[in-house]
């Protein structure tokens, strides 16, 4: 399962691997790759499904968890950073993540060069390779598909800093964070010359790139930003779990584009990813509520939604790298551990991760990324070959996770402090009390 991207003109055979480098990298196909209309249609559909995860999925999911006075600021921040990510992606993000290799052997592990800035050289005839030898999809479709990943990841980070971070600071932070955190990590995991790809780390649809990256960055950003005024003293209950529930549904449906789309073709691997995205999620939704019950509480609607998201996060790296049984166990496990993270860990350390971006995406991502090294096993129904060794794979997975954590921590700290110097980080206490909707955007979400 090696993803190769053949540049239209050059056909350089650059590998953009997604899931597994357990197999030796094959040589680039000499023959011109075939572009299948079915694959192309599926990838365009998947791309739009991921867009739906952001707008309106994540916007409603996060917005409902915020207080009434901050609903619009949450939705606006999510939408605006996603738009920013799309423009930067075309400007230089795609080139940094999936462009041509630097000649330096050291540098090319972390980013690719800027030759494809503003999509230079990409035409309607350029293609990007899939996992199947000689099968490709149009490069524009691949660029768009990956663009939505960058857009949702930066929006996910905001979950920890809402209700207090300035809109201007969010935009500055977003631009820098994408540049120094997201693009390099995406390259490291998915590009043929990338560090994690070369190590053989398994990440089908972005457990490290998207979820660990976003979750850890969210934690670091929240720590630097500080708590919301009144945190732990005032009631900060979600203003509309109905919105959150709608957002959860949109995210789940959209996630099929995210996970099954990451197969890059409309085939059996996409079907497996689809299967796992159903069952891991279903197991996680129920497991979270069961955990609440065991802990002596009522099985809650928010618990159900949180479990759904935790399951989706955990199955992301495992989607095409696990059998259904492995996915069910992984989803359920992620729900239980994420439950402990948001109810116990957060309280113990007292950080204000407002919407639990770290507790669900960070922790769930780690469970998923490390767990993928287990469920990949053919003994558990995964697609591993006979010569696959779980211990080695786990070592690689842990190394990729730790490296991502360190990278995201340092990069986020830099991005946040630059934003602080340029715009200041927090709204004034008056605006925070009155709500960011009025203070930052001059509107109210609800005028009854």
């Amino acid at each position, binding site marked *: 399962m090696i993803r190769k991207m053949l540049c239209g003109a050059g056909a350089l055979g650059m590998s953009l691997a997604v899931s597994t480098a357990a197999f030796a990298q094959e040589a680039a196909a000499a023959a011109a790759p075939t572009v299948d209309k079915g694959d192309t249609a599926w990838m365009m559909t998947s791309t739009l499904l991921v867009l739906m995860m952001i707008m309106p999925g994540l916007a409603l999911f996060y917005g409902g968890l915020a207080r009434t006075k901050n609903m619009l600021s949450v939705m606006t921040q999510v939408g605006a950073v996603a738009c920013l990510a799309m423009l930067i992606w075309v400007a230089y993000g795609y080139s940094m993540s999936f462009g041509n290799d630097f000649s330096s052997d050291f540098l090319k592990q972390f980013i690719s060069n800027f030759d494809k800035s503003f999509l230079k050289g990409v035409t309607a005839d350029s293609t990007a390779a899939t996992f199947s030898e000689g099968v490709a999809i149009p490069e524009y479709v691949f660029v768009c598909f990956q663009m939505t990943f960058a857009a949702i990841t930066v929006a996910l980070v905001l979950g920890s800093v809402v209700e207090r971070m300035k809109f201007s600071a969010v935009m500055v932070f977003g631009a820098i964070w994408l540049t120094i955190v997201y693009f390099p990590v995406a390259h490291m995991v998915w590009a043929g010359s990338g560090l994690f790809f070369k190590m053989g780390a398994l990440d089908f649809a972005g457990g490290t790139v998207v979820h660990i990256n976003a979750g850890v960055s969210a934690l670091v950003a929240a720590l630097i930003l500080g708590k919301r005024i009144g945190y732990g003293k005032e009631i900060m209950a979600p203003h509309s779990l109905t919105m959150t529930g709608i957002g959860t549904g949109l995210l789940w449906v959209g996630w099929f584009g995210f996970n099954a789309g990451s197969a890059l073709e409309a085939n059996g691997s996409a079907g497996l990813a689809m299967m796992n995205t159903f069952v891991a999620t279903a197991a996680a939704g129920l497991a979270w509520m069961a955990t609440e019950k065991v802990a002596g509480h009522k099985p809650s609607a*928010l618990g159900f939604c949180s479990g759904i998201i935790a399951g989706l996060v955990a199955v992301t790296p495992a989607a095409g790298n696990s059998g259904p049984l492995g996915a069910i166990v992984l989803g359920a496990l992620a729900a239980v551990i994420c439950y402990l993270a948001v109810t116990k860990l957060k309280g113990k350390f007292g950080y204000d991760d407002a919407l639990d971006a770290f507790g669900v995406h960070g922790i769930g991502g780690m469970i998923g990324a490390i767990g993928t090294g287990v469920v990949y096993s053919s003994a558990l129904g995964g697609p591993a070959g006979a010569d696959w060794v779980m211990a080695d794979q786990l070592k690689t997975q842990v190394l990729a996770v730790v490296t991502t954590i360190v990278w995201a921590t340092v990069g986020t700290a830099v991005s946040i402090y630059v934003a602080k110097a340029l715009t200041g980080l927090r709204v004034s206490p008056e605006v925070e009390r009155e709500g960011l909707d009025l203070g930052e955007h001059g509107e109210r979400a609800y005028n009854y």
Partner: protein
Amino acid sequence: MKFIIAIIKPFKLDEVRDALSALGVAGMTVTEVKGFGRQKGQTEIYRGAEYTTNMLPKVKIELAVSDAMAAQVVETIQQSASTAAIGDGKIFVLDLASATRIRTGETGDTAL
């Protein structure tokens, strides 16, 4: 004239209204309010964050009636709003100095 303020359970509002209409009460003002008395509050938990609300939602009815009707109105509200459980509410009766119908300028009992 008397001014009657009754704090009742929200779901009892229709019953109270029907009973008072049957008695010939021509109008009332209703407000959704929050408050506390002997009834204990509720606990809400969102991802482990526990919030205890000791203010419970109630409905406040305000109406002005003639002296002759007051006792009967109070009794009717008491009976129709009762569930015989804690949290059923209270009825307060105040002396009312004057009443004016804005449309016609009528005052006193005829304005009610």
